[in-house]
């Protein structure tokens, strides 16, 4: 027990580091994922190819390889940023591929008749998209986006191994200080459980509010 009380600030730093990584990478992943999803359903061929290539490659890339390439590779091009920014970039890009697929399959669950009916009422493209198609798609993407963001929070542990301050990395400091390693890991596990359960609770609330049984 005193592993936690003695090192509350170390654990706190790590916990906040993980929360920060998760938060920023989620924002990046949602923005990029939305962009790529709109590329993938765009009527322009080359954008579709680009979106498809982005998703196919990133979905099949081991995240460790991506971290390896981004954190150690980009500095070779003279791009020197803090490791934390690189980690957010790698995590965000990786997760954006999964977000894109979730959004795209959400759009595909909207029946074709909905868009056709909207247009036959004389709605413009923007109106039929903003008032008819996207609101319905949004309802069915809540659970898959939630599970993707939980996966993102768990994947952020890899950043710790590339010397970014986060929860898993705290074990190194504490084992050097000679604390019981098993208890250290128990508290690390509790920290991750708090984060993943919080995300899952958030998305359950969202789903209860807006989700729809289809």
């Amino acid at each position: 027990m005193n592993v936690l009380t003695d090192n509350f600030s170390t654990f706190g730093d790590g916990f906040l580091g993980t929360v920060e990584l998760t938060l920023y990478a989620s924002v990046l992943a949602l923005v990029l994922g939305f962009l790529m999803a709109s590329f993938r359903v765009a009527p322009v061929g080359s954008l579709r190819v680009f979106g498809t290539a982005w998703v196919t490659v990133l979905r099949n890339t081991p995240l460790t390889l991506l971290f390896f390439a981004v954190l150690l590779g980009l500095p070779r091009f003279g791009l020197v940023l803090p490791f934390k920014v690189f980690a957010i970039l790698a995590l965000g890009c990786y997760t954006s591929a999964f977000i894109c697929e979730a959004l795209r399959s959400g759009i595909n669950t909207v029946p074709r008749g909905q868009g056709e009916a909207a247009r036959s009422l004389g709605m413009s493209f923007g109106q039929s998209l903003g008032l008819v198609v996207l609101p319905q798609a949004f309802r069915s993407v809540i659970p898959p986006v939630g599970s993707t963001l939980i996966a993102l929070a768990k994947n952020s542990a890899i950043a710790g191994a590339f010397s970014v301050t986060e929860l898993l990395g705290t074990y190194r400091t504490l084992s050097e200080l000679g604390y019981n390693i098993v208890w250290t890991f128990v508290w690390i596990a509790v920290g991750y459980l708090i984060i993943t359960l919080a995300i899952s609770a958030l998305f359950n609330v969202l789903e209860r509010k807006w989700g729809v049984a289809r």
Partner: protein
Amino acid sequence: MTTANALYDVPGPKTRKRHRLYGIASTAVILGLLGWILYLLFDTDQFTYTKWMPFEYKGIQELLLRGLGNTLKAFGLAAVLSLALGTLLAVGRLSDHRPVRWLSTLVVEFFRAMPVLVMIFFIFVALKVQPLPALVAGLTLYNGSVLAEVFRSGVNSVERGQREAAFALGMRKVHVMSYVLVPQAVRAMLPAIISQLVVALKDTSLGYLITYEEFLHAGKLIASNLDYDLPFIPVVMVISPIYIGMCMLLSWFAGWVSRREQRSPKTEAVDVAPAEPGTLLPRVQ
């Protein structure tokens, strides 16, 4: 493609012309981006002979192949063991005995909620296990738990009439499961199972972080060699196509199985899962 969803009408001649214009503009932008990356690569001298020389040596080639072999070994072990663990846990979750059900639910939910890297590090650091067993054990616990959920949802997704008919014929639960439900469930879930194995294959690269001598580790050894002018980018350019290619091959196989099973008359009483790894949103009822 454009008419496959609710977004667009069939475009007319004016719209087609406009789309062609957008197409040319975006192609130009994408080509410009690719050209810029290529320029950066040349500008920072990534294509010099010294940096690509190491790949000519037999020793280096063997090092890479040994790394690849170790990756595949870890993947094979983790795949077989997690399928076994998944079966065991799924049987536990479908059990008629409440304590067994609770225990397996607890195990499944815990290991699904933990980052796989935390488990691997725990086994490696706290239990002081060798890298390979630690990696395989961590991957097995995580993927086994996810596969257990895949198996269970597969069995539950078989039409209710199948189970009822089997019980009505006087079969016992073991027979209902093994002759009626499981064969249909496995067919339906095969794409999801293979996709989960892709996740396992990708996660074998975590072995790099616990000094297991796998593919990435071999690459790192070459990349940090001063004799070859630190050929980091060439190493990434050699390693990532192989890694990504292996995963793509397996993903493509999952998609192929999915399409095949959807056509099969043997999956009429059950929905074939799409070729995606198991989703994870713990249900708070």
